[in-house]
């Protein structure tokens, strides 16, 4: 029964929860709310966001957050392969849209932000990461970009700000000969972006757990020894995990008994 529940929960996470989360990020990542009439503005991801998405996917593979060889393979059932590939596609678009949500829409700032993202992701390709460190690093990367765009820059360009802010904004534009010009959106845009990035990071955390779950299959020595097929591995793993507590406890008790006996001697 537990094995059944486990496989159903795994299917639910991989085929419903994760794609839904990532698709929602893809939907909201390009959504802005106009400052003047509070209407929706949908910004399609720029090419550079797609490039950043590709780099991030590579980083996720290198950081073992996506265990590609375990998610897609000859030994897995075709439907499972399709579900996993679909999930990876949604992850790619979510990544591109997550970048889209924190990139300024135009001007020099757009290229500056893009350059720093490219630089960071390119450097990270050559660093050693484990999933936890990678998750932390990505959360900080997106968090910093969010603060810069939706708090600092939005505040500088806000027409509702005080005179000091407006002077600073005007000076900044003047010094940069107008190249730092950025469109101003309603504050709701910042909230939407925050929600989007939170969803994205939650999705990545879930993905890390899902990947860990799948990775356990390979690590288990019994399964490794007998080289079972993927379906058998799942069944075997579930059976082992179901039966684990009692035999382990029993063997531990036996070992403890032996130790005590040898101690007495």
């Amino acid at each position: 029964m537990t094995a059944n529940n486990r496989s159903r929960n795994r299917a639910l996470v991989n085929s419903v929860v994760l794609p839904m989360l990532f698709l929602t990020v893809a939907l909201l990542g390009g959504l802005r709310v106009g400052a003047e009439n509070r209407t929706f503005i949908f910004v399609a991801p720029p090419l550079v966001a797609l490039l950043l998405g590709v780099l991030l996917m590579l980083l996720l593979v290198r950081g073992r957050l996506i265990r590609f060889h375990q998610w897609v393979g000859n030994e897995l059932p075709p439907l499972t392969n399709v579900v996993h590939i679909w999930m990876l596609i949604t992850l790619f678009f979510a990544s591109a849209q997550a970048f889209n949500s924190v990139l300024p829409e135009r001007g020099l700032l757009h290229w500056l932000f893009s350059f720093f993202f490219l630089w960071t992701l390119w450097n990270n390709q050559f660093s050693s990461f484990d999933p936890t460190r990678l998750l932390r690093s990505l959360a900080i990367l997106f968090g910093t970009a969010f603060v810069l765009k939706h708090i600092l820059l939005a505040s500088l360009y806000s027409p509702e700000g005080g005179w000091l802010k407006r002077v600073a904004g005007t000076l900044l534009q003047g010094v940069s000969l107008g190249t730092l010009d950025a469109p101003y959106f309603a504050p709701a845009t910042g909230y939407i972006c925050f929600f989007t990035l939170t969803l994205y990071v939650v999705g990545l955390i879930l993905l890390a757990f899902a990947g860990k779950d799948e990775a356990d299959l390979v690590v288990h020595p019994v399964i490794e020894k007998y080289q079972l097929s993927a379906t058998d591995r799942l069944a075997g793993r579930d059976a082992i995990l179901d039966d684990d507590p009692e035999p382990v406890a029993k063997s531990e008790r036996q070992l403890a008994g032996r130790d005590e006996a040898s101690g007495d001697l």
Partner: protein
Amino acid sequence: MQAKTIQVVGLAFTIAYAVFIVWIYATEPRTFKEVAISAEVAAGTYHVDQEKFNSALDLFRREQFRAARDEWQRADPAQGDARTQFYIAYSFYREGWGRLYYDQQLFKQGLEAVNRAIALASASPLTVDDPNLGMHSAAELKAELEQGTERSWSDVNPLKVLRTRK
């Protein structure tokens, strides 16, 4: 529910969601109301508000063209009805028509509207049986609007003042 069923249902559901997202980005609705209208258009259940259409027609016959256009735009917010778009184009034509010159801006807007009407009625040529109109087909109206936006030597012909508005 078996894991396989969950996978199939999940895949179908998420693909439908992805199609919805692509559609949203393609149509770019500006409000939730526009989302609903676009959904009606996509589902084929969209209808023009007949009451507003008639009220606009009444204004059009009284030569209050701007008010008529406003009312037609409210009657057909999705710009999805060929007949309404034809009337909007006609209102631009009538307002822009002058004995000495044509208002180029209004004629260009009229041309856009008549092109929309033609595109919407692509299955068959669009004709409107209204005895108050001088032109009954979208093709005629388009030709008239195009002639109005073109510059030629006939523009300096003094006999031009004798022509009549259709």
